[in-house]
């Protein structure tokens, strides 16, 4: 017989420990892999997303510098709008001709007699989003079609213009720049300046392109407030659900555990719990009709309120309050404490873990709620993050690139992950206390 606290393990135990360690590490890596792949992809140029063989390190898009030369007379006679148009034409041709090049940002510099006068910046991501048809149709390049598209892009605000006085350090040149220069000469009749040089360089910060595109995407589907609006809408629902469940389920759980006579408490709990046997999707239609008669069928309350009737969270609350010893409440009562102040002064301060646990369960559920939100929230200004994701997921391949999708996924995961890390300690406690013991 071995002593209990002996550190020596039997051979079979050693094998099991070894196997357990190996398997745990294996599964942890497996679970982490999709996230790793997501992060890496979000830092790639869209061109590389589906390339063979896949790259397991970020391949950020390049930054292109195009220098346009103007004669002094020409420059004096034109306004900034003309240069913007030139820049637009030339970058458009660049993006158009380099569908397979990692071209993220295009900067066009205007040089007059060897001094730099102005620059215009175009981002492929915004171009892509705001004017998707550029990439979809009509690959025939005619002067007229270019000008039309350029005007459209101009209207949509795809060009950023500013005056500068310095050229960037020269980067690499390659076949593609030769090709581009050639193309620009062909479009000579469309622009006023002359292409002097085309070069590109590697800039780590261009990985942000996908994140910018993700940030802009909700705008491109007609949400005026953009991603902040979608995040805010989702937050409204999740915070509403958390606070509502704290109040509704918390009060009910306390009442069932400490206030109700035992017999009645058990019956009431059964009545609440029976409803969770009827799947919520089954009653979807009727709930929708009920909400319609209450006039809530298109408001955020229509999404939040049905979430509050949550029997399992009520059970968690009851289980936790059951764990607070009855003697504690009785002692307080003997000292002349009313039922109300027993709840607020004694039980509430003790129950932080359960509130955090319910918050951690309800927050992601509300933030990611899809089915109900899709039925209730029809107006684009009400779209939540999952509804925007739905548009992205279903349009992938055309206007939404996978790289942008991954960036979007990472952005929208931030709130839930933050909450999980912050509340991890209390989550453990809450789970252990409230009868989740199995």
């Amino acid at each position, binding site marked *: 017989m071995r002593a209990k606290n002996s550190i020596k393990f039997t051979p079979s135990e050693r094998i099991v420990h070894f196997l357990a360690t190996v398997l745990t590490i294996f599964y942890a890596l497996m679970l982490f892999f*999709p996230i790793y792949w997501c992060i890496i992809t979000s830092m790639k140029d869209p061109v590389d997303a589906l390339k063979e063989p896949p790259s397991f390190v970020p391949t950020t898009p390049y930054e292109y510098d195009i220098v346009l030369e103007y004669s002094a007379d020409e420059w004096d006679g034109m306004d900034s709008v003309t240069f913007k148009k030139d820049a637009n034409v030339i970058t458009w041709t660049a993006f158009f001709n380099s569908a397979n090049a990692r071209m993220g940002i295009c900067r066009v510099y205007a040089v007059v007699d060897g001094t730099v006068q102005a620059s215009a910046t175009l981002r492929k991501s915004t171009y892509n989003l705001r004017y998707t048809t550029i990439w979809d149709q009509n690959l025939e390049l005619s002067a007229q079609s270019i000008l039309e598209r350029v005007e459209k892009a101009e209207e949509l605000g795809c060009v950023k213009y500013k005056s500068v006085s310095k050229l960037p350090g020269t980067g690499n040149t390659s076949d593609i720049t030769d090709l581009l220069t050639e193309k620009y000469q062909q479009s000579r009749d469309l622009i006023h300046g002359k292409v002097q040089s085309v070069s590109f360089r590697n800039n780590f910060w261009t990985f942000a392109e996908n994140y910018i595109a993700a940030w802009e995407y909700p705008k491109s589907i007609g949400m005026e407030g953009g991603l902040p609006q979608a995040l805010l809408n989702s937050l409204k629902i999740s915070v509403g659900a958390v606070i509502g469940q704290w109040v509704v389920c918390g009060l009910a759980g306390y009442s069932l555990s400490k206030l109700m006579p035992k017999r009645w408490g058990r019956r009431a709990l059964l009545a609440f719990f029976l409803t969770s046997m009827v799947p919520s999707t089954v009653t979807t239609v009727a709930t929708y009709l009920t909400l319609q008669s209450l006039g809530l069928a298109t408001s955020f309350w229509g999404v939040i309120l049905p979430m509050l009737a949550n029997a399992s969270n009520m059970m968690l609350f009851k289980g936790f309050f059951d764990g607070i010893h009855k003697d504690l409440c009785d002692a307080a009562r003997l000292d002349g404490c009313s039922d109300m102040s027993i709840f607020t002064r004694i039980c509430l301060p003790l129950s932080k873990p359960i509130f955090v646990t319910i918050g951690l369960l309800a927050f992601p559920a509300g933030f990611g709620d899809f089915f109900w939100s899709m039925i209730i929230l029809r107006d684009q200004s009400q779209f939540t993050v999952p509804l925007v994701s739905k548009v992205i997921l279903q349009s992938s391949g055309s206007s939404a690139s996978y790289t942008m999708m991954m960036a979007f996924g990472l952005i929208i995961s931030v709130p839930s992950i933050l909450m999980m890390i912050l509340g991890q300690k209390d989550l453990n406690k809450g789970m252990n206390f409230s009868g989740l013991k199995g």
Partner: protein
Amino acid sequence: MATNTLLYKNRKKAKIKRFLIAILFLLPAIVCFVVFKYIPTFQTLFYSFFRYNLMDPPGKFVGLRNYINAFKSEIFWTSFKNTLALYGWQLVLGFWVPIVQAICISELVRGKTLAKLAYLIPTGISGLAGLSIWKYIWEPEGGLANQFMSLFGLGPYQWYGDEALVKFCLRFPAILGGGGTVIILFVSILNISAELYEAAKIDGANAFQRIIHITLPGMKYTIFTMFILGLTGSLLAFDDVYMLTQGGPGYASYTVVLSIYRKAFQEQNWGMAMAMAWILCIITFAITAFVFWLQGRTEDEF
């Protein structure tokens, strides 16, 4: 004597007062459950006998016509078969994974907290973000899955576009396990009495025997609960199917909830949608009851 009755009266008064407070505390929950659970449930049953008319509810009484139409509808049965097949894949691919993972955590000598975190954090990735990752991986042209298969000279496969593979692909992520399930199972292992393990040690059981004869039986109830929860959750599968395949290709991944949704919100055939919902509800009940009965029977054999 007088003081006694007074005390008694006071106590009774306090009891009634406490009962009133109890009701007051329960009131929000009662309102929520009645309005959003009880009323809709009975409404669903009631309206399923009508050809529901939004303008003039409840519309024309049609008796069991909605149910008969639902049973006759071939798509409805296909969607049932699909839903069950999805659950089948879920069981084959993923049901056992959290159990293995939980046992592994409990057998670790050190780093249990770290392992728990490693299993929990990935679930923080929002469900929809997860779906987009998998959609990207299964992409037929240039997706990671096909590139991996081509290493063995196989493929390319259409994955989500292939009627035979789509259900497998939809449930494949379950093979990674992780998430809250692992933690709940792990807690259930912690609750197995240490005396059992010591007794086994004294009897000379080795570590493998200990896992098979003590740990696994100790987790039985939690595993059973997970099984039931997984079943009901799977019968209600909607989000991923709707987002990724929309029931396609053809009707290969059409689920029951998807067909209810289409019937109600796209064809505006509310009455029939509610009849289908009740059929789903009854089948869920029946399967759950059957599993419980089965569990009760196997229990007797021990």
